[in-house]
């Protein structure tokens, strides 16, 4: 599903935020991306949805060459990759419902289908009764859940989640985690950047660890850190 070959990303052209990353994620896998703050997790995710173009290296998603993709084709890639952004990236002038619906409008879903799917997903992340709130009227954690709902509402084959539980309390985090697990079980590949040591250690999935932009560990059924 994801294939990164010698990917280097240097924002300033000199100091790489990601350094010669080689990573392969197969269809249906669940991967935790861990690493200290500033180690390059978000950068890696941004590369996968082509928010950024790498300085060097090749990236393939479902066989498509992400690096050399034309700008006017990029939206087709992004429709197949749901993404929970670390800073949520909600549209400020749209309600929670409209934000989620937007991901469906974009792929041309008919209105009646949207009216069914969007509320369903919002309920799944525990936002029942807050459909008509604007992002500015939601708490941090609620915004994060809208972002999550938007990311998987159109059932993309690949789901990227950048610290999707950073603003959530342990209970809801657990629920979200089991939700992601269920989504994964239906065949969706999930790559999740996280700092939540407990969660990573409890579920024991594949763990990819970054440090200073280098891939320092890739462990099936791994843990958050060695020190555990």
């Amino acid at each position: 599903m994801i294939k990164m070959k010698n990917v280097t990303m240097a924002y300033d052209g000199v100091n790489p935020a990601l350094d010669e990353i080689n990573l392969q994620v197969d269809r249906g896998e669940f991967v935790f991306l861990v690493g200290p703050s500033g180690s390059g997790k978000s950068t890696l995710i941004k590369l996968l949805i082509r928010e950024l173009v790498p300085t060097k290296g090749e990236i393939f998603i479902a066989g498509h060459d992400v690096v050399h993709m034309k700008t006017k084709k990029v939206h087709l890639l992004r429709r197949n990759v749901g993404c929970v952004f670390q800073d949520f990236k909600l549209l400020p002038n749209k309600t929670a419902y409209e934000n989620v619906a937007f991901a469906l409008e974009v792929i041309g879903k008919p209105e009646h289908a949207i009216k069914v799917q969007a509320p369903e997903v919002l309920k799944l992340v525990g936002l029942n009764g807050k459909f008509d709130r604007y992002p500015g009227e939601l708490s941090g954690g609620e915004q994060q859940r809208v972002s999550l709902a938007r990311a998987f509402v159109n059932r993309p084959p690949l789901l990227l989640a950048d610290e999707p539980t950073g603003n959530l309390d342990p209970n809801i985090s657990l629920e979200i985690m089991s939700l992601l697990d269920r989504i994964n079980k239906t065949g969706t590949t999930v790559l999740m950047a996280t700092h939540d040591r407990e969660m990573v250690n409890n579920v024991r999935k594949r763990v990819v660890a970054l440090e200073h932009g280098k891939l320092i560990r890739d462990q099936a059924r791994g843990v958050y850190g060695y020190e555990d």
Partner: protein
Amino acid sequence: MRIKPIYFAREAIDNMCKNFAMSSAAISTAALSLFLVGVFLLMFFIWNSFTVETLSKLEIEVFLKDTAASEQVQEFQNKILSWDEVDTIKYVSKDEALERLKEKLKDKPEILQAMTGNPLPPSIRIFLRDAHSTEMIVGKIRNYPNLESVVENSKQDIKYGAEYIDKLFSIISIIGWVGLSAAALLCFASIVLIINTLRLNIFARRKEVAIMRLVGASKWFVRWPFLLEGMLQGLIGATIAIGFLYFIKVWVLRKVIEMIPFLNISISGPLFTKLMLGMILGGILIGATGSSIALRRFLKV
């Protein structure tokens, strides 16, 4: 993929209402600058109708020999009338010429008193369709084969205010030229001003554009609502401008006409309709192009 015109239209209207501060700025800018263009064009139209009127009062007068045979004069007149550029001609007899002189000199009766007999020759007054052909017609008259049979002195007896015409034409052309540059300047300014506000609006929303793209919207999916919004703002701006212009045409112009009744100022209905249509189309067009130009750099995500 289904195209969703209703969705786009709803989005455009929604965005306009939700970003009231921004859209009101865009609309008022469009209204004001289109209004300025409109006022200027109105003034230009009025000026034009003046010059047309003034120029239509220019004439050529050919003074005839006292001794010219009436058939030859008749033939001469027919010849002149046969030219396309000539609108009408008028024969002025010796007596009529004296009457006209009396009328002109009614302030200075002593001159008339001092005159003995009627020294004035009969003449033909020639009115042209377009004053610009004056010189050409004068040339044609001078080349009339039997001229010497009706006119004494072809230099002196064909009068058309050569000097006056030159001045008038150059003033009219300079004012026309200045007016045209000013019109171009104003149009240019209003385009730049409108596009500026649209650019600022879209700049303020560049992050939204980026988010839409990141969530999988195609360029056109992002562009349509902005385009429609720009067009709508242009349209509303133009409509407001037309409203004010109409007020000026109906109310202010009436006042002006009351104050200077001797100049007959008027603006023809069809011309005004054309102006209105032009402004509306212009507003929509500027809105659309402005939005899409401004969007371009933010769509490259």
